[in-house]
């Protein structure tokens, strides 16, 4: 069975390492990028089946939630799961509904929940 490709875009190296390792353990092939710019370039290289996109990137110029729009525009067929450490709408300065992603997930997320969601959108 073909292993599915997942691209994780997050500025936190540890999140990439932990989420990546836990998902690999569940049978996915993981690619990662630490910035939106790098991530967008990787999409054409690795052709992921799904993207896990952190929506913040406070230190960087391009924010994750802006990237979602950009990615959806150029690759509308790849499902995006947006995730963030922020779990309350009052903390955002934009509307959650405006994020062009399939689902919005809070970090930390239980791995089995994450796998469930990923499989849902890979189907």
């Amino acid at each position, binding site marked *: 069975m073909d292993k599915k490709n997942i691209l994780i875009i997050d500025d*936190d190296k*540890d*999140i990439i*390492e*932990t*989420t990546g*390792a*836990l998902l690999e*353990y569940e049978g996915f092939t993981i690619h990662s990028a630490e910035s939106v710019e790098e991530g967008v370039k990787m999409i054409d290289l690795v052709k992921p089946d799904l993207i896990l996109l952190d929506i*913040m990137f*406070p230190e960087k110029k391009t924010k994750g939630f802006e990237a979602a729009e950009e990615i959806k525009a150029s690759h509308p067929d790849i499902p995006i799961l947006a995730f*963030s*450490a*922020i*779990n*309350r*709408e*009052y*903390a*955002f*300065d934009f509307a959650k509904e405006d994020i062009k992603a399939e689902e919005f997930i*809070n*970090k*930390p997320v*239980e*791995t*089995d*929940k994450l796998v469930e969601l990923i499989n849902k959108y890979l189907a």
Partner: protein
Amino acid sequence: MGGSSKIDSSEYTDLNRVIRWFIGLRWAAAVGVLAALVFGHVSIRYSFNFTVLYVLTGILVLMNSGFALYYGRIKRGNLSRKEMGIFFHVQICSDYVLLFLLIYFSGFLNNPFIFYFVFHIMLTAFIFPSRVVFYYVLALVLVFSLFMGIEYGTDFGLFFRGLAGLRPVEIPGQSVLFGLSLLTTLILTAYLVTRIKIRIVERGKKIEFELNRYKSLDKAKSNFILQVTHELRGPLAAVKGYHEMILKGITGNIAEKTGDTLKKATRRTKNLLTIIDEMIDYAYMKSEDEVHFTKIEIDMHDIIQNNIEYFENLAQERGIKLVFSCRKNIKVYANRDLLNIIISNLITNALRYSKPDSKVSVNGDEGGDEVHLLVRDEGIGIEEDELENIFEEFYRTRKAREIERDGTGLGLSIVKKAVDSLGGRLAVYSELDKGTSFHIYLPKT
């Protein structure tokens, strides 16, 4: 008026409104003047030169039609500030000239309607900056003084008086006094209105400044909460991830004791996460005014389900059965964050203070014009003498502190504040060692 050359659209709309008002007022004035003329003419009590007066009224009507047409053209299109200024000057000047001529040819200082000049100077003071108003007042004073001098001091004046149809004045001094009174009224009115206008503008600027300050403080505050949330929960997510990697054996086999020890660390980490969530909610609730909460339509089933899913694993780890029941399509018009705060904090407490192999249930229902949320546990319960204190900030019951070291004592105070903000009410029933149930009633709209 004055300042940069382009006018922004809201000021443009305001200026348009003023012009429309001017033109409308001038139509009313024309009708009034005509009525007065007809009355004066017909009653044959006045020996004015009515021809001249009718002509002047006709000119007034023509001018206003011109203004109305011009206004029709500029309504949508953009005039520069200079052009708008010129338009106002033209209107005001033509008003003064026509008013002067009408008054002059109908009795001059004997015509009480001369006081309409006061009204016009007030208008001028409202529209133009004080420097311009000063020039208008100066012009009026000079013109009036000139004509009063001509009328009452010279033979030339007698000629004019004939043209103007004035009766000879009995007491020249009286007219001079009258004239002085008028002129000083004009000057004082212009000054007063200018000062009032300056005050109003200053007040407006002050309010705008305060509003901007408030907005930026607000932004700074929500930025702070965003930073704190992100910076605290992010690293914890990584820590949790590493624990999980080790426990699953991804990094290699571990001894049983190592695994057990690590699980204890994981437990405290998860506790820390809930405590952080509580503190952030607390900080948010403390800082917000009620008016900020935007309400939307929320499906009770969905929001309860989301929260159950969030806590499922935690419940499982503690050996607690977490269930919910709620019909679909029970809608409540509320703020989603507040509702999440209520449900999550109640579930956190329920899980925290329950023993393994017990059940926590969340129920959603509706009755009348309220929705009913029930969170019930089979845990340690609350002693009767402490029931009234549990909603106080930082209060934790004796039993609570015994069974679980970590806890802020903020959860229920947050829940209470959230329920109050949503306009609802809550009730709690508890029996020691049997369990506790929290009932939340929220208005549907």
